[in-house]
């Protein structure tokens, strides 16, 4: 633990896909397993770490999340939970998708979980036609197949031995 306190003031630079640089405290960056592994494997913290898949807008959001979670002590779980729900509130689907991709790439499990759950929640209580529109998914079922899938729900126990 002593070393992490010692390193508290160390900073590293992350570079987004669109070339913007972010100066980040090391303990904040450690929220990301990817960055943690890079630092552990002796990448110099003086280097700029490029994140070619993440744009500046998304990276700013990700780092905001990491900072909150790195700074909060474990006793403040309730506060973190309300931060999490507030953090994703009103976020549009495009931003959510970028966030999921970024959290997946940077291996930030907590953020990945809440963003995935938030996307899943948008499916809630919506008919499948509407879900197709929201997610821009094309219906590639033949009418017969689609009818069969719907019947699947109707006759739920029919095939049970």
């Amino acid at each position, binding site marked *: 633990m002593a070393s992490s306190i010692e390193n508290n003031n160390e900073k590293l630079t992350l570079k987004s896909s669109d070339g913007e640089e972010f100066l980040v405290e090391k303990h904040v960056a450690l929220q990301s397993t990817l960055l943690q592994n890079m630092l552990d494997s002796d990448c110099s913290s003086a280097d700029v770490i490029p994140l070619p898949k993440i744009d500046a807008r998304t990276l700013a959001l990700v780092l905001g999340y990491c900072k909150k979670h790195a700074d909060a002590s474990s006793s403040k779980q309730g506060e973190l939970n309300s931060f999490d729900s507030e953090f994703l509130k009103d976020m549009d689907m495009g931003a959510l*998708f970028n966030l999921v991709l970024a959290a997946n790439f940077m291996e930030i499990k907590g953020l990945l979980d809440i963003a*995935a759950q938030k996307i899943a929640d948008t499916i809630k*209580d919506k008919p499948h036609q509407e879900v197709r529109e929201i997610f821009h*998914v094309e219906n590639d079922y033949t009418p017969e197949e689609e009818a*069969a899938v719907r019947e699947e*729900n109707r006759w739920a126990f029919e*095939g049970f031995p």
Partner: protein
Amino acid sequence: MEVFDVDHGSTPSFDYLFKDVTYYANQSVSWYQSLDSLPDPSPMLPKGGGRGAGGQHGVAYDALLDNQGGDEITSTKEENKKSDANNKRRGAENKVEEEEEYWIWFKLPRDLQISIMRSISSFDRDYRNIRAVCRRWRSLAPPLRWIPDSEAIRYPWLVSFQIEDGIFNFYDPTSDFTYEMNTGASNPGILSSCEGWLLLAEGERSIYMLEPFRKITIDLPLVPKHFDNLNGHFFAIDKTTTCYHFTRINCTSSGQLRNLEFSSKRAAWARYSINGISFLSSWNNLVIFRGCVHCLDQVGRLGCIRTVGNRPTWVVLNKSQQLSFPSKVWQNFLVSFKDKLMSVIVGNSGGWVHVLKFNFSSLEWEQVDSLENLVLFVGRTSIAVEAEEERLRNKIFFPVFKKADGNNIIFYSLESGRFHSFKSENSYLDFHDSKDFKILSNCTWIQPGLIPTFR
């Protein structure tokens, strides 16, 4: 109490009753075989999956499919359709390219798609919608497999029978989803349920048990001749590991209390008549509590049949207590939970609802103001469950539906003193108006001994 007569019938095959269900538990059988014969967009996906095949993200077969590209969907349907679909898909992609920076679902890696799908509970109706979206979504959400599991489904379903279609409906009140099942029954009277079994009557004397989820039927000997029509009567089922026991208590027009019993041990019906006791059994379910059948009368007296020595004896526990209610009692229900015996007493059309708890020391009913974390499902079989979800706590579900908003079940909240439904902000003082509410009569709550799973 006198034994009137004993009617011996043929011995039913009780082997089925006690068959070890672990055999089923170890199988995960897809319940909709014909769907699996549809062309699968991901040919490497093992058909039928298997229990425990799925992990959080790192499912073996998922990893294989990780790099599945956008154009890899193959269909075994006619080639024409396929190329049509491809053209359409290309069209769709062009559109996306035009809208720069716009996201599309299939840009997400497959393991992310799967983890998003897995965030949706298999108990939710939304899960069932996923499979209807498109082929690839269908492959992301494997068909639910129903595995026998006595612990899995926390809340009971309401089972009713649709005469027009000849099918059973199983309504899950927590997800507002109805499952349907055809068993070939013509017009069964639903009498009672116990641990996933239904007690059903066809006609006046024929009675049988049905385990609807595995479709096991046990025919019971005909009910003794010259006995009242079974339909509309209540039965208590006592299930132990070695036998089943049904009891019915009814009151003849001359005020005589009668008790009809069936025991699988003897494979025979027995009926008793209880003389000289004024006990007008009311329209309510019977309940087995501490091994005895309990029954309420119209003024809240609690009768029970105890076995003293070898003889069943009738006892009224709260002889002296007089209960008074705001108006005439419409229905009352008995429901037990662990060491608690409660009754739910309902005025006409739900105009008032009282919950009482029986105090076995003072032998009196006591008013209950809050059920705390319990949720009650009352009807021909009444079931109490400790609710995990806040929205279900301190509520009572009746087999009553609000016709607007797609036929939703209504429930009484002890906190608000009103009836509510999950689909609407409105609340109701009662369910008097038959234009707005539908009361199901031929139905009962059943605890499904199954779990839907895709893991």
